């Protein structure tokens, strides 16, 4: 006799896992490809029909060795389902037909899960009336689905994240398969039991190892750091890119530092781009963006009808690629990378600027904060001198300059360094709720008055009053004496490290 009660628990777990895989696929599809309605419809539809295919195929498995087959199917679900989210994350960066891979997983999991129930029912066939069997198995199956639907948004995604949820479910699948070898022992040959146990143990071990290694995607410590669940992350050779999504929209982090939050980035980017566009002697035709791989500065620049050509130089192809293909980002930057006026170069700005002699009417310098020596060089006098050599005579440059409030010395070090390179500089600042008070430097070759009028564009933050107010520095952000940042002293990196340490 088989202990049927325990097998129902088995059904329950299998049901939870099956639905979680489905929800994971739907979520990943909508995060990574956008258009959640289409993604969820496709995933659910395919999953259910694949289960149908599985059920139909179950007919072809004859009764010999049924228990072993059932357990092998369970292990296959564990492997395919458990690996689904990590594999999809990896593919997203490298496979063109991500959608096909995604649907392939959904189909495979659906078929396997579809095979499971009929096989189980056949195993229990002789033990009770058909009436009882159908009602109990289906009850546990549906209750499992409910449990999954509740756990997924409340526990799994916020606590484990997508990759770990997937691996955890894979482990759960493997555990019940292992347990099943005892439950179904009477129906297994002695040799068969051992073989299945070994396989189950291997799958379980694999899942657990993968869970530990999931730090390659997101580390526990890192998950703690982000308020919202991580929906995308990638370790590129250059940096760690993380996108999180919460109620208020999504956020991009590079090496753990917030780059923007979709809720208020318009303040940052309107303040970054429009003053420099208005400060140039004539409406800029040729614009250079250094850094700014998220494409949000591009979005603002392309609004200006005078713009004929924009070149964006960003070190990391993964970042510009993400901005082009990640739907949420591409929507936010108005698909600016698809604009024919835009050329993307993936190179180190320090070297690129030295090697490319073209002149630009406006230059937007939007690098991550100077928290490493490799970034610090992009804030040196030498770097600004090189940029100055690429600025058209009446052109203007803007530089994101960290926070004048949290990092006052760093902020003024950047201003003074730009001045030391031969620019005439005006500091300004704006408040971005998710950052705090943020600072910039507006610079030209010759002394100038900052612009007082905003362009005639549909702007959300900037108007003439806000523009003028930005150039007023409150008392706690006024000039402090600092060293000029140079290649051989990297004074800025040291200021920055000391100042931000106080706030951590």
């Amino acid at each position, binding site marked *: 006799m088989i202990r049927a009660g325990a097998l129902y628990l088995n059904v329950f777990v299998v049901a939870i896992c099956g639905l979680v895989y489905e929800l994971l696929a739907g979520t990943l599809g909508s995060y990574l490809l956008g258009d959640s309605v289409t993604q969820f419809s496709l995933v659910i539809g395919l999953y259910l029909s694949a289960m149908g295919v599985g059920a139909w195929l179950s007919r072809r498995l004859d009764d010999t060795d049924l228990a072993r087959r059932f357990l092998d199917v369970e292990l296959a679900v564990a492997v395919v389902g458990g690996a689904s989210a990590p594999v999809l994350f990896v593919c997203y960066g490298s496979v063109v037909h991500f959608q096909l891979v995604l649907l392939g997983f959904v189909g495979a999991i659906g078929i396997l899960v579809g095979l499971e129930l009929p096989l189980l029912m056949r195993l229990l066939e002789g033990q009770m009336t058909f009436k009882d069997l159908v009602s109990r198995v289906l009850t546990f199956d549906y209750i499992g689905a409910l449990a999954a639907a509740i756990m997924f948004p409340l526990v799994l995604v916020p606590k484990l994240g997508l990759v770990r949820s997937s691996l955890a479910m894979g482990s759960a699948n493997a555990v019940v398969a292992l347990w099943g070898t005892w439950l179904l022992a009477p129906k297994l040959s002695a040799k068969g039991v051992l073989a299945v146990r070994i396989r189950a143990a291997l799958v379980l071990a694999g899942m657990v190892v993968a869970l530990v290694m999931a730090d390659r995607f997101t580390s526990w410590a890192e998950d703690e750091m982000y308020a919202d669940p991580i929906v995308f992350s990638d370790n590129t*050779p*250059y940096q760690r890119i993380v996108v999180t999504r919460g109620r208020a929209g999504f956020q991009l982090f590079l090496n753990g530092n917030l780059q923007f939050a979709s809720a208020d980035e318009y303040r940052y980017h309107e303040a970054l781009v429009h003053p420099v566009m208005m400060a140039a002697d004539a409406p800029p035709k040729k614009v250079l963006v250094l850094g700014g791989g998220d494409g949000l500065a591009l979005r603002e620049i392309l609004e200006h009808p005078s713009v004929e050509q924009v070149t964006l130089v960003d*070190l990391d192809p993964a970042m510009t690629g993400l901005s082009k293909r990640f739907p949420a980002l591409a929507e936010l930057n108005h698909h600016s990378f698809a604009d024919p006026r835009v050329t993307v170069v993936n190179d*180190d700005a*320090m*070297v690129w600027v030295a090697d490319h002699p073209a002149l630009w009417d406006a230059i937007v310098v939007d690098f991550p904060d100077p928290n*490493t*020596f*490799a970034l*610090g*060089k992009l804030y*040196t*006098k*030498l770097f600004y*001198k090189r940029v100055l050599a690429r600025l058209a005579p009446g052109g203007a440059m803007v530089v994101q300059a960290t926070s004048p409030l949290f990092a006052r010395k760093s902020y003024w070090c950047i201003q003074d360094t730009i001045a030391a390179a031969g620019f005439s500089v005006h500091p300004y600042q704006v408040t971005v709720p998710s950052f705090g008070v943020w600072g910039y430097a507006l610079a030209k070759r010759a002394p100038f008055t900052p612009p007082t009028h905003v362009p005639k564009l549909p702007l959300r933050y900037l108007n003439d009053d806000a523009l003028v107010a930005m150039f007023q520095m409150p008392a706690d952000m006024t000039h402090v004496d600092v060293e000029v940042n*140079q*290649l*051989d*002293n*990297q004074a800025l*990196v040291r200021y920055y490290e000391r100042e931000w340490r106080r706030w951590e």
Partner: protein
Amino acid sequence: MTPTRRDFVALLLGAPLAYACRGGGGDRGRTPPSALLDTGMTRGHTAVRDAATPPVVTAWRQARVVVIGAGIAGLTAAWELRRQGVTDVVVLELCDVAGGTARGGATDVTAYPWGAHYVVAPQPAQTDMIALLGEMGAIEGHDATGALIIDEALRCREPEERVFYRGRWYEGLYLDAGSTAEDRRQLAGFKREIDQWAAWHDASGARAFAIPTRASSPAPEVRALDQVSFAAWLDARKLTSERLRWLADYACRDDYGLLAADTSAWAGLFYFAARQRAAGAAPQSVVTWPDGNHALVRHLATGAAIETGVAVHDVREVAGGVEVVATGPQGPLGIRAAAAVVAVPGFVADRIVESRRGGPPAPKGDYGAWCVANVHLRDRPRERSRGSAPPAWDNVFRDSPSLGYVSATHQAGRDRGATVWTWYYPFPGDAAATRKQLAGAGAAEWTEVVMTDLERAHPGVRALVEHVEIAFWGHGMIRPRVGAVWGRRPPDLDTAARVQIAHTDRSSLALFEEAFDHGLAAARAIVGQLA
């Protein structure tokens, strides 16, 4: 029996590493493809040292001045002659390229050095050096005190150095982490000594340690420093902190290829005090280019008539001028000129300059051997992000007899992707014995040593290496052993001599500034004769 790669690693890096290494049969990973650079040593030996009879010249060419050797000294002499309006100057060079021990190479990725790597930012008295750097566009301006400011792009970029110790990198060369109060007290004491020497002047205003060394004070108390070793000098001051002594040894190995116990205290103090303008002043900046001092070679060589692949055998004074006999790519070569500058190492000059062959044997210089490897990487190894210093220009392994490596892309600001690392290994022992020990070592054996050494700090680096080039400088540089700097000082130049000798060897220190100074002096003597 020819040594295996593992024997070779054991010889150069010590037995423990040899057992960890993939030597012998190549058990754990491949040795990257490698090649040996021709440093001219073999050609010099066969064409000059071992030649039975000098070649017979049939047709003599004419030139105004012949310069023998296109190292820094020879190129400087030719440069100075050009600047003074002397035309028809021919430079003859043994190797296929100019530069000598300041040679360089280049790939699509970056230029890189083969020997000399940096100069020290000149002080106001070094007017010729300032003129040279000015000509190269390497001077940015002057600060409020009137001091020269070198172009920011050439001042060594921070972080300049880091040192690898027990699994981590630390910023700087002096290991601060874990130092005791006594360590720090001794370091401060040493700095005070240096400050005192940096400020020291004799009655005529000469500094104790000046660049070039010719301008240094000959006062007895300064010269006395040449009679003791740097290690003995430190001992006498009870400066025995392991950290400080490591730094002193490192400085001597790095600049002189010697240990502090063998280095003249004069030279040891020179390293620290000469580059400091005054007591308490920060050391003058290190000035460097991706290809090191080869950038200076490129500039000095511009406009010079250099004939490469020419081995000079004989330089002799004749009535009304000089005769130079050589073997060129097309066979024997003879040039008659008004004067010649012999800008080759002393041991070569002793063979090829007629007047030096007959005379009393000059005090022999002591030469150290060096191995330099250029490691071409397709990408950089991952660095630990936390608790370890980031990549620097100079990356030193504290527990290695090598000096570590310099990254050729650091100065240009290329911090990712392909690069070239120049790895240095000085042989502080006897050069002839070293050469004997190393006989039979080819590029592959050397490369295994380089890889094993780099793997101390970068375990996966082998997979990123495209190929390795090795240069073995058998008589790489003259060394300032105890007594050498003042004891071996050659007599002042005879400005009337038609054959002028110019080489860094004349200073018993191998430095750009010395070679430059001797090149200038030789050229100026000849300009005086021609006037």
